[in-house]
């Protein structure tokens, strides 16, 4: 395996990890505020459809992004309404959002475009073009450093850099701002936040809405960055892998980045090498694909450090009377 091949696999890793990372950070905000969200998949799907549809109709990728975020926010508002205002079961609300999104995306896309629940193929203006970072061409001649810069770091779409910038931003918001402190507190002990005179309801809604924005970007990246349009069920379980990554990362932003890159790497390796020969033992591709889930179970079982979820997660907050 030469250096170029390694770079290609890593490049593929980045592309595969970005939707996971965005969804994972989305879940992080929501779950840190005490709202479990298994509807990440559905929100991404709704956003992918809206982004694909509006980018196709307007020919403008930014309109698509806004529409995607908008669709995801609507789903988030539903989740908030069910689980915060009406204190419903958060898991059931999440499942409902996944099912709703799976059905309604195809229905609307079919109604709009009559192409079997698919949005039309996007032409140039409707897609995120790769960005060449400065000097990437001229530096590509330099072995190792220049090659890495040109192949791996340069040449992704804007959303990729935005997603990666969200990691330090999320860390800063969570651990260095008053809002972040309150957000974490509301996921651990909402009663104390309430006693301090801060609205639990508003904080949780804010968190759920941030989650919606991030899922919206993830969906838009799938439909208008990686692909040229929406097709039914195109998220293909990425929302669930993102949830697994969130647990694997123990609900921390930097760990989330590494977890998503690891899961992305596993997928990229599985794509590049259908079966891996390790001196007599052949690892089938299915094993590589299942590995993210296996790792998550191992973490959950407490073999490699314990993953402790926010204490008040899943519990609707009822004010004491």
């Amino acid at each position, binding site marked *: 395996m030469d250096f170029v091949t390694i770079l*290609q696999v890593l490049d593929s890793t980045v592309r595969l990890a970005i939707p996971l990372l965005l969804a994972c950070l989305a879940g992080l905000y929501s779950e840190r505020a005490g709202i479990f969200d298994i509807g990440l998949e559905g929100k991404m799907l709704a956003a992918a459809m809206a982004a694909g549809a509006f980018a196709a109709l307007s020919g403008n990728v930014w309109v698509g992004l806004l529409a995607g975020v908008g669709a995801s926010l609507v789903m988030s508002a539903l989740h908030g309404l069910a689980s915060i205002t009406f204190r419903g079961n958060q898991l059931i609300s999440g499942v409902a959002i996944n099912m709703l999104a799976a059905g309604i995306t195809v229905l609307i896309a079919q109604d709009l475009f009559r192409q*079997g629940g*698919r949005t039309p193929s996007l032409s140039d203006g409707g897609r995120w073009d790769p960005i060449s970072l400065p000097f990437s061409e001229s530096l590509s001649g330099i072995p190792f450093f220049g090659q890495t810069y040109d192949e791996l770091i340069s040449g992704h779409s804007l959303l990729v850099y935005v997603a990666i910038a969200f990691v330090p931003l999320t860390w800063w918001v969570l651990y260095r701002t008053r809002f972040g402190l309150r957000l974490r507190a509301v996921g651990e002990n909402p009663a104390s936040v309430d006693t301090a005179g801060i609205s639990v309801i508003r904080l949780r809604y804010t968190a759920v809405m941030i989650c919606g924005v991030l899922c919206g970007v993830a969906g838009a990246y*799938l439909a208008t960055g*990686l692909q040229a349009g929406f097709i*039914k069920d195109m998220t*293909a379980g990425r929302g669930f892998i993102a949830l697994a990554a969130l647990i694997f990362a123990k609900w921390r932003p930097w760990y989330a980045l590494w977890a998503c890159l690891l899961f992305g790497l596993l*997928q990229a390796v599985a*794509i*590049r090498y259908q079966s891996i020969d390790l001196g007599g033992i052949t690892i089938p591709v299915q094993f590589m694909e299942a590995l993210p889930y296996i790792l998550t179970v191992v973490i959950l079982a407490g073999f490699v450090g314990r993953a402790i979820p926010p204490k008040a997660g899943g519990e609707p907050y009822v004010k004491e009377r």
Partner: protein
Amino acid sequence: MTSMKHLFGAAAALALTAGLASAEPALIFDLGGKFDKSFNEAGYNGAQRWADETGGTYREIELSSEAQREQALRRFAEAGANPIITMGFAMTVPIETVAPEYPDTKFVNIDGWANLPNVQTVSFAEHEGSYLAGVMAAKASKSGTVGFIGGMDIPLIRKFACGYAQGVKSVNPDATVISNMTGTTPAAWNDPVKGSELTKAQIAEGADVVYAAAGGTGVGVLQTAADEGILSIGVDSNQNYLHSGQVLTSMLKRVDNTVYNALKAGADGLETGFINMDLASDGVGVAFDEHNAPLVNDDMKMAVAAATDGIVSGSITVENYAASESCSVLEF
């Protein structure tokens, strides 16, 4: 929300008309949906052709979940629809359950293996069509490496891959065929992102023609191939127009002819038993139209014609993975 109203309205109308007895034929589309640009759409086109020619009407349903299969069959049979045409191998088991209960109704099981007196089971020689696609791929390839991307890893898709590889090797015995499957679950039919990544990986390994037999995943394969400036091969329906000038050809499965013939024969004329739609009966083939005309030269056309003649006359035998469960030219 008006779309929701339409939906409920349509569902109510279906429920109402279901009670009326009629001898209308019925069509059951599989989960991919009526307009999947591929398999189901080919069936729809055949039915539409029949309707336009004869002025006849037919009833239809698009399945939206596994649980509906048996229910839809029974509903149509109960309402007196005859014949009932079903799309896709997954209808085999439901037909085996329902068909014996309605011995006077005829069923068509496309791509399946049901063996019952009132069922017409249609299979396609996809390996023969894929062989032709492989011949074209090998002729068009400059690098000597071509790719295959399958959807879910099932024997049917391996049959495509194996036929394709044989076609490639018949032209260029030294050619390399890279074969990848998207996954092992039904999600593999709808994962264009993974299709794109597989295409990029195959391009990195030198492939300059990729053949996608992967349903919705193939949309991502064709897109990436067009973006990266290599050729792709579509499947089931004619997909040449999706990226005009960048899709080498499409391996056609003439599901439209099958549906058209079944509708034309009607309940009385429909032959039951096994029907094999192969190259000789025009059941499979490769597409030539204005979209791929610039990519096809006379040498390629002659090679396809020679291979077609060879297969039809029997001088070329294409190994069928689904029958032998092994492939001499490709490892899975």
